[in-house]
């Protein structure tokens, strides 16, 4: 072994360790930044190591690729607004998976394009890599399109859809197995790749925009597993480790989300939730919504002892996080205690609300999780629901018949009074009626969250 090989191997080992340390750092906001720097350093080491690889004959393409990629990445990194995180994540899964697929394809091609040979094990790993990579690429792209609103977010369903998909999947796997036995049949290989690309689309088509986060996390884990498979193909440990870590984080997050929405993964994938079919459920709810005028709200807030803000997807769409903080500051100046109740699946991705509020410089010490804040509501004078809906839907708690029955909620209805900021009669992502809006404690303040809040700030200042 030359010294290069040693250097490479150890740079990879180091990188693996640094990646793990990096993720460990994320267990606390204080240590997170340092952790990321470690991970970044690890990545640098790995790249430098790789550049010493003896097989490399020309650097032109490598350098160009690195430069171009860095520029694109930098641009994305700097200018993507926090509210567009879900799309960004989807897109980068597509990239990652695509890279894995391409490497796999070229590995295969360079052997069989020139009468070489691959042993069964490698072929197996390679097949996984390419298939996972391909379907994740197209799947993530479609997810991106739906989230970005480039295509309609509603689920596309048709009769016998699941059967068709299963059939397609079966075929693909069939070809895969055949290829393990007879790796030499090049055309079949490309058929398999093609099918995988198609399957990615079919997989995501029937899933509504609102369920995308779950799907994305799943695609995330696929992308991770694809990298891991690449690791098996090149028998490169750092790839295996990083890929597996990625795969698991995606998997765990999707589980967490499903639990918080209490739905099963299968229901998310094949339930076509949020489609016209289920959207009607729970309609025809009796009762009247009490509209409340801005001044009254202002007074309530101004003279309250404790106020809890409950942000939801609406805050994200309205970009209202900064003005929310302003209102909080104004209230705190008046001696009101302000807390934020954050539901694990408020918004459209895990930790969505936390990031937005952090962006608005809300200290995370005043963000409270479900378990912490629920006991506080009885002692809360005003609970302000800012573009949240499902996460405060009492049906989940009270009505076993409801589709979201059992989903843990923020029990704002236990507060002395509730103010709901929303634009109109719009439903939440679940498409369900929300009894909270008909309760006596609840007052509806219609209008775009941002505007309402801006006016509230002034009103409070003059109250």
């Amino acid at each position, binding site marked *: 072994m030359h010294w290069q090989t040693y250097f490479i191997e150890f740079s*990879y080992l180091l*990188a693996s360790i640094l990646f793990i340390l*990096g993720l460990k750092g*994320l267990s*606390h*906001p204080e240590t*997170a*930044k340092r952790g*990321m720097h470690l*991970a970044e350093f690890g990545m640098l080491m*790995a*790249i430098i190591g*790789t550049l010493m690889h003896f097989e490399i004959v020309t650097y032109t*393409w*490598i350098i*160009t*690729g690195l430069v171009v*990629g860095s520029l694109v*990445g930098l641009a*994305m*990194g*700097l200018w993507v607004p926090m509210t567009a*995180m879900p799309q*960004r994540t989807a897109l*980068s899964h597509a*990239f*990652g998976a695509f*890279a894995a697929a*391409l490497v796999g*394809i*070229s*590995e295969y*091609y360079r052997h069989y*394009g020139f009468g070489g040979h691959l042993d069964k*094990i490698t072929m197996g790993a390679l097949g996984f890599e390419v298939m996972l990579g391909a379907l994740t690429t197209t799947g993530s792209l479609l997810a991106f399109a739906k989230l970005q609103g480039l295509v309609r977010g509603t689920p596309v369903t048709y009769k016998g859809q699941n059967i068709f998909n299963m059939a397609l999947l079966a075929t693909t796997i069939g070809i895969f197995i055949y290829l393990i036995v007879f790796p030499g049949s090049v055309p079949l290989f490309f058929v398999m790749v093609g099918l995988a690309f198609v399957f990615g689309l079919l997989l995501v088509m029937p899933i509504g925009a609102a369920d995308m986060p779950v799907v994305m*996390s799943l695609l995330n884990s696929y*992308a991770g597993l*694809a*990298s891991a498979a690449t690791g*098996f193909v090149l028998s490169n*440990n750092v790839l295996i*480790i*990083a890929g*597996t*870590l*990625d795969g*698991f*984080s*995606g998997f*765990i997050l999707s589980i967490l989300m499903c639990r918080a929405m209490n739905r099963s993964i299968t229901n998310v994938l094949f339930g076509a939730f949020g489609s016209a079919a289920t959207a009607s459920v729970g309609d025809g709810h009796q009762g009247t919504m009490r509209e409340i005028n801005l001044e009254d709200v202002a007074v309530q807030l101004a003279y309250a002892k404790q106020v809890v803000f409950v942000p939801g997807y609406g805050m994200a769409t309205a970009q209202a996080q900064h003005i929310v903080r302003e209102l909080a500051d104004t209230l705190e100046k008046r001696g009101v205690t302000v807390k934020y109740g954050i539901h*694990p699946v408020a918004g459209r*991705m895990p*930790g969505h609300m*936390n*990031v937005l509020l*952090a962006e608005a*410089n809300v200290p*995370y*010490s005043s963000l409270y*999780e479900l378990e912490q804040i629920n006991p506080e509501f009885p002692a809360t004078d005003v609970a302000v629901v800012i573009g949240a809906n499902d996460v405060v839907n009492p049906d989940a708690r009270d009505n076993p018949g409801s589709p979201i029955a059992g989903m843990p909620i923020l029990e704002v209805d236990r507060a002395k009074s509730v103010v709901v900021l929303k634009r109109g009669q719009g439903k939440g992502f679940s498409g369900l009626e929300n009894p909270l809006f008909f309760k006596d404690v609840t007052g509806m303040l219609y209008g775009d969250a941002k505007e309402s809040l801006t006016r509230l700030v002034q009103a409070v200042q003059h109250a």
Partner: protein
Amino acid sequence: MSAQTLITALYVFALAAFLGYQVISRVPPLLHTPLMSATNAISGISLVGSIVTAGAHYNTISTILGFTAVVCSTTNVVGGFVITDRMLGMFKRKPGAADKSKDKSRV
């Protein structure tokens, strides 16, 4: 790949899986979004595979594929890490230093 290599690879995989589970499940909801972009960036490690493919002149097609792969992965790595840093820069325990952090969150 020899069966022996496969087996050690499986060991690494199994251990990494456990570790992933342990480490990730300790990340608080507060940091789930940064976690997503971080793992994203890290999985950009497939870059090491792409680089070799792009640099070792196996044949034109491989080189092209490799080059594209390098671009994609690099985008992930750089983009992912930059965004993660940006987000983490925004998380503050106590208020104050608001503006400083705002700058951070933009750079």
